[in-house]
C-alpha cells in the first residue's frame, strides 16, 4: 500500500515537473538569443562602447547624437520613402492579382504558383537576378529599351533610378506572398453578399467599394502592417542589388545601423539607433494589434 502510494506521489511529481522540462530547451535558447540581447542592446545604448575597451556611461548622449546625425535621418527618410512607395504598390498589385485569380480561371494553379514563386527565393538571389537584368551595358532591360527606341536608363548608378530599381525588385519578390493572403481573405467573404448585390444591379465597381473592401478590412490591415514592418527592416536585397549605392543613395536604416555597429565599431551609438528603430516598428505593431482587434469587433 505505502509502496503504491509513494509511486503515485512520484508520478504526480513527474507530471508537475513535465511542462517545465518540455519548455526548458526552447526557453533557454529564447532567453539567451532574444531576451538577453534585447536587454544588453538597451544597456549599450547608454554607453560609449567599441566592443573591445571598457564601456563608458554616457546617459542620453548617444540618443542626442543620433538626433543630430544627418546621415541617420536621411537613411530613415529614405526608408520611409521606400515604404511609402512599396506598401501601396504591394497592396494594389497583390489585391488586383488576387481578385483576378479567385475567378473561375483555367490554369489558376500555374498563375498562382508563378507569381508566388519569387517569394521563395532568397533576397540575395533576388538582388543578384535584378542586378543582372538592370546592368547598364549588358542588361536585358536596357537592350529592350534600346530596341523600342528609348535611351538606356542608368538603373543602378543614378540615385532616382537606383531607388526605383530597389522598389521594382521588392515588388517582384513580395507581391506573391501578399496575393496568397488576399486570396484567403477574399475567399472568406460569403458569396451570397455578391449575389444580393448582383440582384440589386450594383456595378462591379460599386460592389468592390461597398462589399469587397469593407469586408476585407482585417486582411487589409494585416497586409499593410506586415509590409510596412518589412519595409523598415529591408536590407539583404539592397545589399545584393545596389550595395547601398550610388554613394549612400539606397542605404536604408538597417544597413546604416549595421555599418555604424560593425564597420565603425560604435556599438553604443548603433544600439541607440536600434532602440529608435524598434520603437518605430513597435508603434506599427501596436497599431496593427489595435486595428485588427477593431476589425474583429465589427
Amino acid at each position, binding site marked *: 500500500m505505502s509502496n503504491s502510494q509513494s509511486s503515485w506521489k512520484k508520478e504526480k511529481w*513527474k507530471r508537475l515537473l513535465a511542462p517545465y522540462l518540455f519548455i526548458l530547451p*526552447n526557453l533557454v*535558447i529564447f532567453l539567451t538569443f*532574444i531576451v538577453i540581447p*534585447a536587454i544588453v542592446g538597451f544597456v549599450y545604448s547608454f554607453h560609449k562602447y567599441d566592443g573591445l575597451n571598457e564601456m563608458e556611461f554616457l546617459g542620453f548622449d548617444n540618443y542626442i547624437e543620433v538626433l543630430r546625425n544627418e546621415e541617420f535621418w536621411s537613411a530613415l527618410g529614405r526608408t520611409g520613402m521606400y515604404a511609402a512607395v512599396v506598401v501601396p504598390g504591394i497592396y494594389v498589385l497583390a489585391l488586383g492579382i488576387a481578385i*483576378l485569380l479567385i475567378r473561375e480561371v483555367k490554369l489558376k494553379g500555374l498563375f498562382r504558383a508563378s507569381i508566388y514563386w519569387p517569394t521563395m527565393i532568397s533576397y540575395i538571389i533576388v538582388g*543578384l537576378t535584378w542586378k543582372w537584368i538592370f546592368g547598364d551595358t549588358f542588361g536585358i532591360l536596357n537592350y529592350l529599351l534600346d530596341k523600342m527606341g528609348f535611351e538606356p536608363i542608368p538603373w543602378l548608378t543614378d540615385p532616382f533610378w537606383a531607388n526605383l530599381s530597389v522598389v521594382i525588385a521588392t515588388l517582384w519578390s513580395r507581391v506573391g506572398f501578399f496575393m496568397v493572403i488576399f486570396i484567403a481573405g477574399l475567399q472568406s467573404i460569403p458569396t451570397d453578399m455578391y449575389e444580393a448585390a448582383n440582384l440589386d444591379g450594383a456595378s462591379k465597381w460599386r460592389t468592390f467599394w461597398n462589399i469587397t473592401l469593407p469586408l476585407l478590412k482585417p486582411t487589409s490591415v494585416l497586409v499593410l502592417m*506586415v509590409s510596412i514592418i518589412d519595409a523598415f527592416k529591408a536590407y539583404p536585397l539592397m545589399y545584393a542589388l545596389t550595395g547601398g549605392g550610388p554613394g549612400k543613395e539606397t542605404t536604408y536604416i538597417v544597413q546604416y545601423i*549595421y555599418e555604424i555597429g560593425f564597420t565603425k565599431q560604435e556599438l553604443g551609438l548603433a544600439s541607440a539607433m536600434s532602440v529608435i528603430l524598434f520603437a518605430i516598428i513597435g508603434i506599427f505593431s501596436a497599431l496593427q494589434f489595435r486595428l485588427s482587434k477593431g476589425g474583429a469587433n465589427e
Partner: protein
Amino acid sequence: MRKAKWGTYAILFAITLIWLFPVLWTVLSSFKTQDDLYRWPPALIPPTFSLEHFVAAFEKGNFGTYFMNSTIVTITSTLLLLLINAMAGFALAKYRFKGDSILLIGFISTLMIPLEVIMIPIFKVISFLGLYNSLLGIIIPPAATPTGVFLIRQYLLSVPDELLEAARMDGAGEWKIFWRIILPIAKPIISVLAIFSFMWRWDDFLWPLIVINNPEKYTIQLALSNFIGEYNVDWGSLLAMSTITMIPVLVVFLLFQRQFVQGIATSGMKG
C-alpha cells in the same frame, strides 16, 4: 463565381510572363559561354549550352563547401526547431502550470522584436559563448522561434485532454505521450513549420553575416553576396551558383505546394 473573360487571361498571362522572366533569364544565362554572356544583342536562349560556369563555381569558387555548409545548417536547424518548438507548444497547450500564461505572453510579445534590431548585442552574446565563426552559431539561436511555438500550441489546443488521460491510465509517461501521441497528431502543422524553417534557414543572410567571418564556414547566401565586388563581378559563377541554389527551394515548393499556400494563408509569416 464569375467566369473569366479573355481580357482577364490577357492580363494574367502578361503578369505571369513578367514574374517568370527574371528567373528564366538568370537560369538561361547561367548556361551561356563566357563570350555569349556579354554578347550584344543578348540571346534569350544560349547559342551554345555550356556548363563552364557551373564547373568554375565548384572548382574555383569553392561552391561545394558553401553548399555543404548551407545543407548542414538548414537540416540540423530545422530538426532542432521542430523538436523544441513542439515540446514547448505541447507544454503550453496541454498543461496548466505556474507561469504558463506569462511564458505564452512572453513568447508572443517577442514576435515584435526583429533580429535586425538586436543584431549588435546578439553578436556580443554569440562571441561570449564561443559560437562566433561556428556553424552551431547559425544553427542554435534561430531555433527557438516564437512563431513555431505559437502555431503548434494553437494546433494542439484542439486535442482532447481525455486522450492524454487515457494514455496515463495505461501507464504512459509524459515523454512517451509527447513522442507517441502528440507528435503524430501534430504532423500537419509540423510539416508546415518544417517547410517554413527550411526556407528561412536556406535563404537566411543576416544571421550568418553576423556569426560567420571565416570563408570556410560561409553559407551559400554569404558566399554569393561576397562575390559581388564593386567593379569586378564574376557573373558566370554567380549566375551558376544562384541557379543551383534555387533548386532545393523549388523542389520543396513543388512537393509541398498545397500545405505551403495554406500555411502562408493561415499564419501570414515570413521570418
